[in-house]
């Protein structure tokens, strides 16, 4: 008896996912080969990063960065690391202090290395200050109140928040506002976006955070993966349009069945 290769009903799904992966991979390959890629459109929140660090430098006050409550295997935490490397390089170049606070021990271990490496790449390994990567509390509210206190003492001039945020988002945004920091925030947690939207100067909506590291670093490989992702998004967009047209003409057809088992 012949056995199917795929689990019943998952073939279409696997193929679509694999095609998505191929698109990302192909665009990365294109980038590695030095070929031209479409440009990423302007994202105001990201344009403001350099300006915010510059402002902190002028005022002689530090920059603060956090990823909220992210864990090491959360996608937004990877977005944060991409951004952290970039901001750390800027801070090293401008000789501005970067304070990075943590509530997750594992993420913190990685942050230390990302920052250390960024300082080394800028030729200023001596500027790395171990005490500025701080573990505040493993618990959400303990962390938030510690950040409140820290803001009062250190008075950062820029506050960059990218990652997984829950209820503490508003507290951070309020703390930043109280000391007059320029605030750039971004999260994929839609329930927290309204607070960032209202209380911060710039807000990255949802998946804009995933484009951040590519956008800021202009690294071709990362840009390639964002382009690949965009390509997949257009395919999905087309799929929705076609699917809707077909659905209106022939309700609940094979096309409908294709997308689930």
């Amino acid at each position, binding site marked *: 008896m012949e056995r199917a290769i795929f689990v019943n009903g998952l073939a279409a799904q696997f193929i679509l996912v694999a095609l998505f992966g191929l698109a990302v991979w192909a665009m990365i390959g294109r980038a590695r080969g030095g070929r031209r890629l479409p440009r990423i459109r302007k994202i105001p929140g990201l344009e403001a990063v350099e300006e915010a660090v510059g402002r902190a430098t002028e005022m002689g006050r530090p920059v603060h960065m956090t990823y909220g409550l992210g864990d090491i295997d959360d996608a937004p935490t990877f977005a944060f690391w991409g951004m952290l490397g970039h901001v750390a390089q800027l801070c090293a170049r401008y000789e501005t202090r970067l304070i990075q606070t943590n509530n997750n021990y594992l993420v913190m271990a990685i942050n230390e290395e990302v920052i250390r490496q960024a300082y080394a790449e800028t030729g200023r390994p001596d500027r790395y200050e171990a005490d500025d990567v701080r573990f505040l509390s493993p618990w959400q509210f303990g962390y938030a109140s510690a950040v409140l206190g820290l803001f009062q003492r250190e008075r950062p001039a820029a506050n960059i928040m990218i990652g997984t945020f829950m209820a503490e988002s508003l507290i951070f945004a309020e703390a930043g506002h109280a000391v007059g920091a320029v605030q750039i925030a971004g999260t994929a947690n839609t329930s927290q976006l*309204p607070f960032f939207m209202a209380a911060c100067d710039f807000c990255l909506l949802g998946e804009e955070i995933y484009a951040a590291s590519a956008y800021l670093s202009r690294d071709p490989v990362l840009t390639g993966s964002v382009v690949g992702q965009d390509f997949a998004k257009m395919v999905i967009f087309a799929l929705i349009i076609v699917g*809707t047209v077909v659905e209106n003409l022939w309700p609940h057809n094979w096309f409908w069945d294709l*997308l*689930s088992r």
Partner: protein
Amino acid sequence: MTPSDALEVLSNHLVPMAMTRAQIWVAAMATLAIFSYVWRENPVFRLAEYVFVALATANGVVMVYDSYLKPFFVLDVGQQGRYALLIPFAVGLLIYARSIRGLGWLSRLPMSLWVGYGAGYVLAWSPQPLFVQLRDTFVRFYQTYPDGPLAGRFWPGGTVNSVLFFVGVITTLMYFFFTVERRGPAMRWSSAVGRWTIMLALGAAFGTAVQGRMSLLIGRIQFLLGTWLGWLR
């Protein structure tokens, strides 16, 4: 006790657990200690905060031990002799190697395992719900009344909502295209409509967020005034 009596009990206790008087007093003090923060940061709040962190962390350890580690060592390893399972356990223990000079890299083993497994889970299990979401966006524009006297007839309201919903989803998606420049009226308008949809959605989210926070505060005030002081019926 009849079922309806039981429901009476259910509806009358304002605290989840039947607490003793002493417990209620301690709980009230803890509540007030945290509320004092609203006025200003103070030593009592600080004490409560540290106690909280300590208790929450300790509780996590005890729960994992009782519900996982103890049965694992006693039943799986001890009684059934599944010693091979000690290998993954040991891999998990490598996370503590980070503070050992020279062996710190060993902690990367469990970390890379967690990250890889997490990524695998995303690739394996998240597409299906996503596809159902996609499929549900294939809206039918011709809507009929689902029930009532007009059931089966053309329903203008439903049709308008379907169109608005569809336009909302696709313009929101278009807003997130990173490689398409927003030039020309079509692109500009659609990304503007996308942004308006997002703003309405975020406004609604703000509304429910307020709802949730207020519920929590009401719960604490009910506890203080009702359970502790007995001022509420």
